[in-house]
Each structure stands twice: as C-alpha cells, then as structure tokens.
C-alpha cells in the first residue's frame, strides 16, 4: 500500500488520498478484474494440479498423483515437439506474410483514387467472415485439385494442378491464415501511413529523394511502432489457431499441421488423457510466457516512446 502512495503518480493519487478514496477509485475496475482472474488464472492453477495426475476419462480408475510421469511423457513425445515447431513456423511465416502484403496494399491504398473507400472495404472483409465457414469453402472450392480455383489457375498456366492439402498442407494453411489476417495488418498500417509526417516527406521530395529513399528513411522509422504492434497482435491470434487446422487438415497428414492448441485438443478430447493434456498445457504455458515477456516489454516500449498523453 505504502508503495503506491509514494510512487510519483497523477495528482489524483496524491498522498492525501484516504484508504476509502483509493478503494473508490478501484471499485469500477474490480468486477472486470475479478472475473478475468477467475476465468483465466484459476484454470491454469488447476491445469498445474491435473498435470501431475494420472487421469484418463476412458479408464474407470480415479485420478491419482503420478509425479512427473506426464512431463516425462511430454518431453519424450516427438509429436509434441513437432507441434511446437509447427506452431512457431505457422505463426512466424503468417505474421511476416501478413505484414508484407498488408504494407504493400496499405501503400497503394494510401493514395487517392476513384472508389478507394469501396476497395478498402472489400479488402478488409476476409477478417470478419466466419473462419469455420470460409475454411470449409477454401478446402473444396479453392484447394481441391480437380475443381478448385488454384487447380484451374495452374492448368491455365500449363502447370500440373497441385493437391495442396496432401502435398503442401502447411503452406495451404499459411496461405489461408495470411489471407484471413492480412486485412487486420492493412487496417493498422493504413492508419500508420495516414499519420506519416507529410512535411518531412515533402521536404525530402524537394531535396530530390526518390520514393525508395523516402520510404526507407522516413516512412519505415515512422511506421516501426505500428509494425511492431501489428506483429504482436497478429502473433497473439495466430498462435491460437485452431478452427482452420481442425477443418482444413485435421492436423495432418502425419501431424504435419498440428500445432500446440490442436495437439492438446487431440490428447484431451480425443484420447481423453486429461493428465498428459494438462502437462502439454503447462509446458505450452511456460514456453508462451517466455515468449510473451519480451513481447510485453516491446509493447510497453511502444507506449513509452510514442503514445500516452
């Protein structure tokens, strides 16, 4: 308590604030905070407890403590490590692809042209459509080698039609995810471009700087926090990918497209091995925290540099 008072804070938190006053400030926050803690932190605690138990819903035996056996299983499970690799690959490649495509389109859409508003509205639509619905549609109407649009297009070019889902399932998944999330990158990056320092750009133009120089030495530094924020938000969403995997490839073939989320789902809800699934969850949680901490530092860096009045 004493710490919060002595810390240099806005005037509202002057040392004169009584205990009651401080609780009055906190009051509006509490319902949301308590709800979130109960719903997100409490389950993790239970996951931790389940992870050291031998508990399979298919066997009649009650859950018993089995020490680190589930973790030994986890560390020895080749598919688990593969699923972590897949998660990293899918998240990383899709995030970069979304930002590259999104930035390219944002640069184009930042210029005035007839119907720009409509073009932009059409471009952001994939972000809103129901993922389950479009995934099922892509599976047959886009990826099918016989009558899918991609197959038709490759035949048009005189190339053999590729069976994306069996030959390049991970690439197919990344294409779908990139298509779905590029609009999100686009939305934020357009906003970034619109706030670009026009006087500086004009001055650079007068000084004879070409478009590339302008882009490299003025736009990129200006856009950096926007790109970082986009990458962070995209990665946060892409790491959790589930529906697309379940309905496009069902994690296959041979676990080639299984990510952590999907593997925990398979262990828990297909094999009903709640103990091992919980151990997967704990390891995934530890890895995520290791990745999230630098991400949070990055985000708070963005805050201190730019925003905040």
């Amino acid at each position, binding site marked *: 308590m004493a710490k*919060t008072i002595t810390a240099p804070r806005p005037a*509202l938190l002057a040392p004169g604030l009584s205990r009651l006053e401080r609780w009055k*400030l906190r*009051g*509006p926050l509490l*319902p*949301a*905070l308590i709800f*979130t803690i109960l*719903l*997100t*932190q409490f*389950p*993790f605690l239970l*996951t931790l407890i*389940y992870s050291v138990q031998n508990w399979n819903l298919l066997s009649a035996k009650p859950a018993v403590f089995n020490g680190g056996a589930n973790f030994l299983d986890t560390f020895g499970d080749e598919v688990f490590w593969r699923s972590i690799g897949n998660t990293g690959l899918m998240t990383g490649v899709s995030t970069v692809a979304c930002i590259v495509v999104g930035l*390219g*389109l944002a640069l*184009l859409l930042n*210029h005035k*042209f*007839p119907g*720009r508003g409509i073009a932009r*509205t*059409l471009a*952001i*639509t994939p972000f*809103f*459509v*129901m993922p*389950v*619905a479009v995934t*099922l*549609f892509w599976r*047959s*109407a886009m990826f099918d080698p016989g*009558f899918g*649009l991609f*197959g*038709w297009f490759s035949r048009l070019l005189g190339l053999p039609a590729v069976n994306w889902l069996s030959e390049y399932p991970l690439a197919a998944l990344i294409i779908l995810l990139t*298509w779905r999330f590029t609009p999100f990158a686009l*939305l934020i990056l357009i906003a970034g471009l619109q706030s670009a320092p026009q006087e500086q750009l004009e001055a650079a133009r007068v000084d004879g700087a070409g478009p590339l120089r302008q882009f490299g030495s003025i736009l990129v530094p200006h856009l950096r*926090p*926007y790109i970082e924020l986009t990458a962070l*938000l995209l990665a946060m969403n892409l790491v959790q990918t*589930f*529906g697309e995997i*379940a309905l496009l490839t069902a994690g296959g073939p041979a676990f080639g497209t299984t990510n*952590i*989320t999907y593997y*925990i*789902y398979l262990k*828990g*809800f297909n094999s009903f091995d*709640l103990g091992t699934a919980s151990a997967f*969850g704990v390891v995934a*949680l530890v890895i995520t925290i290791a990745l999230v901490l630098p991400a949070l530092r990055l*985000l708070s860096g963005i805050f201190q540099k730019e*925003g*905040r009045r």
Partner: protein
Amino acid sequence: MTTTTSRPATMSPARRQIAIRRRPSKHLKSVLMGLGGWLGSLLLFLPIAYMVLKSFQTEPDAAAAAPKLIFTPTMENYKGVFEAGFWPYAINSIIVVLVSTAVVIALAVPAAYALSIRPVAKSQDVLFFFISTKMMPIAAGIIPIYVIATALGVLNTLGILIVMHIGMNLPLAIWMIRSFMQEIPAEIMEAAAVDGASRWRGLRSIILPLVRPGLASTALLCGVFSWNEYFYALNLTNSTSTLPLFLQKFLSFGELYTAHVAAAATLLSIPVIIAGWIAQKSLVRGLLFGAVK
C-alpha cells in the same frame, strides 16, 4: 514516359517545361497506384465473391473443372441450409452474441474508466495484465474449464458459452474503450468537475456520449468474435450450440458439397461482414490501443 519526353518543347519557359514533363508521369503513377490498389483489394475479396457465386450454383455446376460464370441460379442450397435445422442454432448464436457483448461492455466501461479517466495506482500494470491473458494459450485452460463445467452441470448450455465469450472479449474491450477515453481532452473532465458534476453524472452525461462511436465499434467487434467463435463451442457444447457447430454438423452428413458449403458459409458470414463494414471507421483507432498516435 515516352510521350512526355518526345513532346516538343515549344516556346515554353524552362520552368513550365518541367511542370509539363512532370504532370503526365505523376498522373500515370497515380493511375497505376489506383489500379494496383483495386487489384490487390479485389484479390483479397475474390474468395468471398467466389463463395457467393457458388452458393447460387447447382452441385454439378459448382464441381466443374473450370469456374462457371454463366449459369442458371438456384436457391436450392439455401433451402437445404434452412431445412437442416438452421434456426435453433441461429437463435442460440444471437442470444450468446447479444448477452455476452452486453455484459462485456457493462464490465469494460467502468474498468476502462478506472484505467484512464480516474486511474488507479499501477493502472499500466493492470492494463498489461489484461492483455497478457489474451496471449496465454487457450488450450492450456480448456481442460479444467471442461472439468468444472461438467461438475456444475453446465456443459452443453448457452450459459457456459456466454461466460467464456465474456472472458475472451473482455480484455480487448477494456483496451479499446480505454483508448477511446484517453482521447477525451482533460479540460472537458476538469470543467465537469468544476461544475460540480458527480462522478456518476460525469460518466453518464459527458464521457459516454463522447465515446459512443467507440463503444459501438467495440461492441460490434466483440459481437463478430463471439459469432465466429468455434473452439469453446466445439469443446463445451454439442446439441445446444451456435452456428459454427451447426455448419460442422451440417457438412458431416455424407460428402462435402461445395455449393452447400458456399450457401451456408455466405449465410453465416453476412451478419459479421455487415457488422465489420459498419465498425471499420472507428475500429482502427480502437485497435491502435492508444499505443501509437
């Protein structure tokens, strides 16, 4: 380019000559940028347009090797969707979206207030706690939630879905609404305080009207996420569920039919597409989270 350089430079002073030479190339550039912008946007939209097109085709037309652009439209696919028990799931979806979004906004507005207008101590830390919950793997918490829901007898109910959707959207809503509240000039708040407006009145009659567009787009985005949500629906419900699960069940009967998929996918996506289009303007400001200006 070639036309501009071959233009005869007759009787014009040097400066005008430069202007003439520059204008067409600038014009050409902006035409190319416009074309590129349209091309890129249409390419992103193409799968959706193609989906709508296929939804009006017969199955044999939809399974043709080359895309058919000219065909006799049929409503059979849509009829099939409605006949497969669409409405109970649709009503469930509407209930879950409306109730969860209403609760999210009701919880998020006071929380955002306590994190921006009259900030609590360490409000930045609280804010980062909220966003960090969105980074945690959802799968790491699903097993205890399943076990607890079973114990409480709420598995396969709309209640559990509503609770999970609130948890899913609350951090996002708090961040977005907070960033809209941050934009309110401090002078307005001070003036209200000088006028002796109570905090409650200040919130209701000054802040809420100012952030209303932001609230609307936050609610629309939360609604979109709730409508589209699949992971909790699949793991926590079965017969009493929402439209994503209906779609999955609808298609698991027999073979995967492209035209039927297209019709169902189009139908289910219409509400969220409209919501997204309405929300897009103020969405960006909210999504920037007040992190960058």
